[in-house]
């Protein structure tokens, strides 16, 4: 197995509340893992720690062979794509096209390639009709697809998806399902979800959190 994220003896507290306790976890590149657990069990915090958004009190997180303490957010972002629980929090450009082309533009990608890659994503996520639409007028499902599309344009090696099925109707959920089945052949995925059926359908491995500790880590 090709290990990608390694979490060792990790403790984390937020606002003086212990959220994660002694977490030891290895996530692999060619694996679809899911984190499940009740509200407040620390699922989102775990995802944010793996991405370096939140800093731990003690313990280490390694991405590849590098400790996240030595990596900046942009450096982590080039390796890991993180989908926020609320897509509103990560959509910042005024139009769908701008949102998708944002990272490529600042990485000085030639316009023709930007156009081509954005169009591919618009096709994949059925957002063609909304190419020039305002991002503020999109439905929750459209925002969710746009956010995932924007992350994928960054060519991440690993994806952390926090509740990606929230706000999706059965048809869109099915489409996301198909997309993840394809993606898992190219990138590692950590899914944080309450959607039991979705988790069971996709996961190679299910990690169960309760009160900040891993109480179960089994193959599916």
């Amino acid at each position, binding site marked *: 197995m090709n290990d990608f994220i390694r979490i060792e003896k990790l403790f984390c507290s937020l606002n003086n509340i212990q959220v994660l306790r002694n977490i030891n976890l290895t996530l692999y590149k060619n694996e679809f893992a899911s984190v499940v657990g009740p509200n407040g069990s620390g699922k989102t915090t775990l995802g944010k720690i793996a*991405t370096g*958004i939140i800093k731990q009190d003690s313990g280490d997180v390694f991405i590849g062979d590098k400790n996240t303490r030595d990596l*900046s*957010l*942009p*450096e*982590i*972002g*080039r390796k*890991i*794509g*993180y989908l*926020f629980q609320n897509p*509103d*929090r*990560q*959509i*910042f*450009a*005024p139009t769908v096209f701008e949102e998708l082309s*944002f*990272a490529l533009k*600042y*990485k000085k990608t030639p316009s023709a390639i930007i156009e081509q890659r954005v169009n591919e994503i618009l096709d994949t996520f059925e957002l063609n009709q909304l190419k020039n639409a305002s*991002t*503020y007028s999109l439905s929750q499902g459209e925002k969710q697809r746009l956010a995932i599309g*924007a*992350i994928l344009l*960054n060519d991440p090696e690993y994806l952390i998806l926090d509740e990606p099925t929230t706000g999706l109707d059965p048809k869109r959920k099915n489409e996301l399902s198909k997309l993840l089945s394809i993606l898992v052949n190219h990138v590692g995925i950590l899914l944080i979800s309450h959607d039991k059926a979705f988790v069971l359908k996709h996961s190679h491995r299910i990690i169960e959190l309760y009160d900040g500790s891993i109480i179960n880590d089994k193959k599916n």
Partner: protein
Amino acid sequence: MIKKIDPRVKLLIVMCISSLGLVFTKVSMLLTVFLIGLLISRVLKADLLMLLKRIRIILYLFVVLVVIQSIFIRSGDSLVSLGGITVLTTEGLGRGLAYLMRVLIILISGTIIATCDMRRLIQGLVQMKLPYDFAFMTSIGVKFLPLLMEELKDTLTAIQLRGIDINSLPVKQRIEIISYIFTPVFVGAMSKAKKLSLSVECRGFRAFDNRTSILTLKFSTVDYFALTITFLLTAALIAANQYFI
């Protein structure tokens, strides 16, 4: 005890400090006002460390503004000149320092207000006959502020997670990024305000001026003492500025 000083007294203190900061032009007087503000801030146990942390990012902007203020004033005696061209004059240095002092006075005034419990501050404003509409708007604004800060932080994080190192971008692109950070937060705030107004109206709430409150503020001896000191000190500073310095 000190922390329980009536918010109206704190408002008056801040009003005096910031007015003196705007009216005075001499650096020595501005420095005195700043030091008095700092002392009051310490007595009221304001979180100065937090202020330093918050302004750390824009600190360099202040320095740039002070330098710009200094070098564009041509009057006064030459202090620094390069190849026969005067770069800095005594007047320029004075104006630059005065600008810096004014910014510091405003910031220190902010820390004094921040020691007020927001509920008490709003009640203070209402008891000072501020129309309830404005007091209500202020209280809602205060409640939403942490949320907006969190949204700003999340947007910044989202941008960085796209692999963009903002610090390494040229200035023009950095300014562009700032618009990307603020626009969604403003749009979100507008949308939240719309939903909130609908929600409060659905519950039959109207911001009528004639209303009672479970919390009413009363001046204590400490408040009267603080008020007297504030008036005396303000008068003394005005006199010193006028006649002695």
